[in-house]
């Protein structure tokens, strides 16, 4: 999390304070029915208080009325502050991105081939620009001609330059990145204001933030509860009149504000924005809040084998000498055969020989050049190796080596075929080493599963998520790796069409599917998947098709994306439960306070022993306001997510937020009551 911003960042807090005042505009408040009701209540009481000052009545008590009114305004402001904080943090993230979007000029190539300098924002989709070394790429696009190294650190944070060239999967470039060497011609693929950085900035700034499906449903629930409480409070006055215990409007509105779910109502949008924000901290850009929510619902993860489940390359994991060959001698031959082999597999053989047999990797220059002759891999021989001190050491696939052995008039033993077959069956790749036309043994190359993946998949399984490994390997190899990595299923010899079919099959069963992809041929599947994370190194088509882009191009991150989605939903649920559970204590504070003057026997309900009716009501209102502030960090950070089954998660969260929500206000209101009576405020 390189972009993490402290919750107490001074600049953001300052901005948020201003923002919370600006958000008092009733037109903006209307989007949040719960807080809108509070604002209307506060405005109404303000007018009443002023009217009371002009024509005082016997019943009015200015000190009490002022405090109630002020705290209602604070309640609204605190909720606004929470939203402004979340937006501020989003903006801060966006600003980092925006820095890369400095105003630049571009060299436009006109249809007749003439070059013309234009301002970058004037570029339109389909324009072709020429970008030379040292220049910024003016917009998202595709390389149509040339090869260049590009510094994308502004977006990815990765300092190593990447190669971008026309055609293939490395043709996409992002606006705001810089060409380091050579030149490229780029065809612009988006209009100004539509590049994915633009979209992203708009999303985190909350300007174009659409409410997500779950957020809408929750908002309906909260609005419904607000109406129920409005009803309970409005009808309470006639009942009070019947009982000769008529209430002031200050008390009634206090009761209303305490009962309606202000805690979750005030924090709801902050939670949503913060969810997007956490994704950005992981260097993932989501194109919509809906995608983040869908990530929490994912049932099936399609994971590419290479890079996600296994380290990118195969590695030597065993040397198997044939009968009569010495272990050490075979290891030595194997190492010698690979000294000049710069492929990752070759290097792994050198390393393995060193680790297992203590054979130090000899540098090329240590071997006298006259004696040592390296044989490079060719398509004809399909072998590589070394000629050294009269020895001809060769390494290659079994077919190639057998041919080589026969060419020397030798016979390869039956044992060789047995060993090779065993390795292939186990999902490995066998490489045979021969010395002077005599086979010595077999090197077992194996896909190495990344550390900790098995545990990760176990956690996912506990969360009810199925993992499917996608690989181009044959079914045998795939099955073996799948078993080792602990994935639930695999798709072998996968073509883009197979992938698409798999996604559709899962979706037909009602499941939500998440996948990663980078190539143009991944685009249809990325679009079909419910959560499609495109790698930033991928093609423009892939990025357009997916609903998230991973700037680090790390396919493993899909798992984190799912966790962030779940965390977002959990935070909403936890705070809703907390908010509703809070109401019980508020009743015990306010109801006896309302009626104890007329019916002293009702003091029996004042189980918190609050000092006076006024202090009781004030304490409840203050608690109600402060709890919003107290929960802002939780709303921004999200509730702690641990991978476990739904049952245990539910139990845990109910205990913390349900029971906690029930009990905490009893303590909080009592403490506030003690404090304000000590200060003489009520």
């Amino acid at each position, binding site marked *: 999390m390189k972009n993490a911003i402290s919750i107490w960042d001074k600049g953001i807090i300052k901005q948020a304070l201003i923002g919370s005042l600006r958000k008092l505009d009733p037109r903006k408040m209307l989007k949040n029915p719960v807080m809108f009701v509070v604002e209307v209540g506060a405005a109404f009481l303000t007018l009443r208080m002023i009217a009371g000052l002009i024509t005082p009545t016997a019943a009015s008590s200015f000190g009490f009325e002022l405090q109630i009114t002020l705290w209602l305004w604070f309640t609204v402001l605190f909720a606004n502050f929470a939203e402004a904080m979340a937006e501020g943090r989003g903006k801060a993230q966006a600003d980092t991105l925006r820095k890369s979007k400095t105003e630049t000029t571009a060299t436009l190539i006109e249809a007749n081939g003439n070059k013309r300098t234009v301002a970058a924002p004037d570029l339109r989709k389909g324009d072709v620009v020429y970008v030379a070394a040292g220049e910024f790429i003016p917009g998202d696009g595709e390389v149509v001609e040339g090869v260049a190294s590009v510094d994308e650190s502004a977006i990815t944070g990765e300092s190593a330059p990447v190669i971008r060239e026309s055609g293939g999967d490395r043709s996409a470039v992002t606006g705001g990145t810089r060409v380091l060497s050579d030149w490229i011609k780029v065809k612009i693929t988006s209009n100004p204001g539509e590049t994915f950085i633009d979209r992203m900035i708009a999303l985190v700034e909350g300007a174009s933030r659409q409410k997500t*499906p*779950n957020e*809408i*449903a929750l908002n*309906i*629930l909260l*609005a*419904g*509860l607000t*109406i*129920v*409480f409005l*009803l*309970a409070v*409005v*009808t*309470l006055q*006639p*009942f009070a*009149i*019947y*009982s000769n*215990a008529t209430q002031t409007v200050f008390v009634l509105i206090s*009761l209303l504000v305490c009962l309606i779910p202000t805690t979750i109502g005030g924090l709801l949008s902050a939670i949503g924005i913060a969810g997007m924000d956490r994704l950005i901290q992981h260097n993932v850009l989501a194109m919509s809040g809906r995608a983040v*929510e869908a990530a*929490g619902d994912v*049932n099936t993860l399609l994971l590419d084998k290479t890079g996600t489940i296994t380290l990118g390359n195969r590695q030597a994991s065993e040397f198997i000498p044939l009968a009569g060959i010495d272990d050490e001698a075979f290891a030595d031959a194997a190492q010698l055969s690979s000294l000049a082999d710069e492929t990752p597999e070759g290097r792994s053989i050198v390393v393995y020989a060193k680790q297992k047999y203590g054979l130090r990797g000899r540098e090329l220059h240590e071997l006298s050049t006259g004696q040592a002759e390296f044989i490079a891999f060719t398509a004809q021989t399909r072998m590589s190796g070394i000629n050294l001190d009269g020895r001809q050491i060769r390494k290659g696939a079994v077919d190639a080596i057998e041919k080589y052995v026969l060419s020397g008039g030798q016979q390869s033993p039956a044992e060789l075929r047995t060993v090779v077959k065993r390795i292939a069956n186990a999902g490995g790749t066998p490489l045979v080493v021969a010395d002077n036309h005599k086979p010595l043994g077999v090197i077992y190359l194996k896909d190495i599963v990344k550390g900790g993946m098995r545990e990760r998949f176990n956690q996912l399984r*506990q*969360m*009810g*998520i199925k993992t499917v490994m996608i690989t181009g390997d044959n079914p045998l190899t795939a099955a073996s790796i799948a078993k080792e990595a602990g994935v639930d299923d695999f798709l072998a010899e996968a073509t883009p069409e197979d992938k698409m079919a798999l996604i559709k099959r899962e979706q037909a*069963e*009602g*499941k939500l599917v998440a996948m990663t992809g980078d190539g143009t041929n991944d685009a249809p599947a990325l679009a079909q998947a419910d959560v499609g994370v495109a790698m930033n190194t991928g093609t423009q088509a892939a990025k357009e098709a997916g609903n998230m882009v991973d700037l680090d191009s790390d396919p493993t991150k899909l798992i984190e994306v799912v966790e962030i989605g*779940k*965390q977002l*939903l*959990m935070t909403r*649920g*936890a705070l809703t*439960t907390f908010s*509703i559970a809070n109401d*019980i204590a508020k*009743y015990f504070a306010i*109801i006896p306070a309302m*009626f104890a003057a007329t*019916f002293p*026997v*009702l003091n029996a*309900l004042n189980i918190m022993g609050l000092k006076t009716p006024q202090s009781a009501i004030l304490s409840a209102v203050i608690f109600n306001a402060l709890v919003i502030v107290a929960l802002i960090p939780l709303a921004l950070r999200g509730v702690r*997510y641990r991978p476990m*089954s*739904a*049952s245990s*998660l*539910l*139990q845990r*969260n*109910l205990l913390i937020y*349900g029971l906690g929500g029930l009990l905490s206000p009893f303590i909080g209101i009592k403490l506030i009551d003690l404090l304000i009576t000590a200060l003489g405020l009520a």
Partner: protein
Amino acid sequence: MTLNGILQILAYLAILTLLAKPVGIYLVKVYNGERTFLDFLFRPVERAVYAITRVDAEKEMNWKQYGVAMLIFSLVSTLVLYGIQRLQFFLPSNPQGFAGLSEHLSFNTAVSFVTNTNWQGYGGETTMSYFTQMAGLTVQNFISAAVGMALAAVFIRGVSRFETDNLGNFWKDVVRGTLYVLLPLSFLAAIFFVSQGVVQNFKPYDTAQLTDVRTIQVDKKDAEGAVIKDSSGETVQEDLVIDTQTIAQGPAASQLAIKMLGTNGGGFFNANSSHPFENPTPLSNFITMLLILIIPAGFTYMLGRMVKSPGHGWAVYSAMMILLIAGVAALYWAEAMGNPLHPANVDQVAVGGNFEGKETRFGIANSALFATVTTAASCGAVNSMHDSFTPLGGLVPMVNIQLGEVIFGGVGAGMYGILIMIILTVFIAGLMVGRTPEYLGKKIESFDVQMAMLYVLIFPLIILGFAAVTSISPDFGLTSLNNQGAHGLSEILYAFTSATGNNGSAFAGLNANTLWYNTTLGIAMLIGRFLMIVPVLAIAGNLARKKLVPATLGTFPVNTALFSILLVSIVLILGALTFFPVLSLSPILEHFQMVNGQSF
């Protein structure tokens, strides 16, 4: 509280639990259109009904068609019942020669029986002819129950089916529910009740000579019936010798059975199930209580069976049972504590607590259990005066209804009521497991929440709205009160709670046969039934259309004890948060006043 009393209550709960599964299995067969062991008897009748009414029983309906059929059917039922009451003087089987009923009482009663409420603004044996009772009221007792059951079946289908608009056929559901469930069980129960001494005849009322002749003082009236006042304005009193008693007769047993089984609750006699001809023995009382809850309990098992998760059915059953036990325990405890305001010469210890308004043949335990059961289910039959309970004892029946009639609830109505609560529970708590909330593989989305909240909103809107207006209207609201203060408020609140909850039990102590009460209570019953059914059907239709998401370890579990507790909490919190303010001015205030020796 006595051991004997507790044992009787436990025996009742145990037998109810044992019956839930067999009844549930039978309900599944009836509503799935499968063969039952009664086919030989009723299948020909069923076919004949379809043939005569030209109903294509195999044609499935979507939720809108189903709703329209149900509404039209209920409207016709209401009009017919209204007509019978208005014209009863003209109709046969009226040995007492009762006149037709007033417009507003006829409206109230028609609505009351069609909505399965059975709120009674009249006294049965002094108002209704045998024809009205049998052809009008008892018919509705069957039909309104069958409609409720049909709706529960629809909701269960909505939950268990997927990617379809078809929710069943309204006519088929009503006919099968009546023929295969209500008729045979009522028949058996009626015969049993006759064996216990419940009357079943068409005779005119008897007159018996009292051995214990009494003389009471009544207002003296002139020839026109006006009260005569003396010169100082005081009413003139005269002696009235009471030496005879009218013994009411009639076909009571046949109506009694369906009154309980269909959670209707409308008594044949004014005194309802405390009348010795309507509930003569402790055994008849026990069976009566079983009949009330047997179908609602069966529906929970049917739910589990239809969604292929019997555990879920039992979890819902357990949640209801927890609330039922809590209610009966609180009521029994409150009544056993007695009333400190009774004069010292009333020996409350000897009778085991507050015996006012209770029948000696039932005692406190069986009165407490009956009151809990009848208000938990929206039955509304009573075997004791709820008005005479201690304040907390009276609070329990009222809260039972205010929780939304979901503690087993009315036949069918309880099932769809609890399903709304389940949807809210799953939505609120479901988010906490980090997924879009799902109920049995169906995603709960904004439309479902919207409809569920509508359902939740209508209920307190009607109760609190009407009660609030009534409580500050001295002319038409307060004049009907027999009591003032907190108890008076309880009476008003109870009446609107009972009507809106389609319960029909009365707190009594309130003269509800006035234009205002008959009309507003009638409207409350209508809205409490039909307006609330619309969102129910909409949700059922919407759920049935959804794709089924396969259950995984990440799915919110709905068959655990934790789920039952959650469901109980949501039901309690929603109810408590809505009604606590007004309750604190009525029974709760009255309780603390009683404890402190205050009365009004």
